[in-house]
């Protein structure tokens, strides 16, 4: 795992964000083993207590579970993945909506542009990938 930290926000939150991102995109599948706390700390060169805090929080959120003597795994519960996806999408959309509102733009006009851009950006990337 590689994380480009901004050190201006708590690092443990960024670790959690990265796990959420990987779970939502399927890079991490339910049941996958994740690095041990010590390994992750060494990989991303972060204080082990910070990583411990992130793992503890993720256990509380139900993203991962630690099995004694076996390691830490992504939770099998598919509902958690769905929930995380929804949460990330909501956060992104909230940010976008606030920015649009701050510019004083209307909902209809914005949604039209969103739809157009969706198809444009999609197709562009397909071309690029060919």
């Amino acid at each position: 795992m590689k994380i480009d930290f901004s050190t201006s926000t708590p690092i443990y939150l960024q670790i959690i964000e990265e796990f959420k991102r990987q779970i939502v995109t399927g890079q991490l599948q339910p049941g996958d083993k994740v690095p041990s706390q010590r390994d992750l700390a060494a990989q991303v060169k972060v204080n082990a207590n910070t990583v411990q805090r992130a793992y503890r929080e993720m256990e509380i959120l139900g993203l991962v579970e630690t099995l004694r003597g076996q390691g830490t795994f992504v939770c099998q519960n598919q509902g958690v993945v769905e929930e995380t996806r929804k949460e990330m999408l909501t956060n992104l959309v909230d940010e976008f909506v606030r920015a649009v509102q701050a510019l004083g733009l209307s909902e209809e006009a914005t949604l039209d542009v969103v739809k157009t851009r969706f198809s444009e950006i999609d197709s562009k990337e397909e071309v690029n990938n060919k």
Partner: protein
Amino acid sequence: MTTTNQVLVVRNLRKKYPKVEALKGIDLTMPQGEIWGLLGPNGSGKSTLLKCIVGLVNPDGGDIEIFGHSRSRHTKAQIAFVPEVENLYRWMTIRQAIDFTSTFYDDWEEERVPGLLAFMGLDPSKKVSSLSKGMRARLKLILALARKAPLLLLDEPFSGIDPASRDRIVEGIVRQFKSEEQTMIISTHAVGDTEQLFDAVVFLDEGTINLQGYAEDLRHQYGKSINDLFKEVFA
């Protein structure tokens, strides 16, 4: 965080040199298992504070408790101190420097030495005099990490060394530090690429503490990196 017992308690610590008041009443309480950054520009009192804790400098007032005891030969043996000054004999090989250092300590763990040397990329047959400053800094860290000391004090381990050595040292500390049984203070005036190492930071300014807290709390509270806060405080 993972606090159980206090490793270090410093109360109203004062030290005056003939021309300067180096410490003007320092208070610190440090729990076990954490890495603290002692941050401040040159001349802010960082080295004096660390040397007072080890017992190399006698304070003029206040007191220091290490694992509940005042300073003594016993507490000294529990501390691994890496000074900023060059403390290695240049004519020795790395192997000789390691063997020489190991004779001073009962808590030396020889079985860890090969792994540490390999990780730090040091060839034990090389002479200390042939090493760059960064390589000597790596060796100094090995000499501290090969001990099972419960309290490690590193004075300016990143000062004036190349980025590759700095990265190795940061990673070495992350890998080797055992939070279940160790506690570490690292003094530095170069906060940049090292701030992710620290559980908590103490800003020392002309002998007084002007900001102290857990790094993640400070980032959250100020919306800034420790490095940016440092620049602001010492601008």
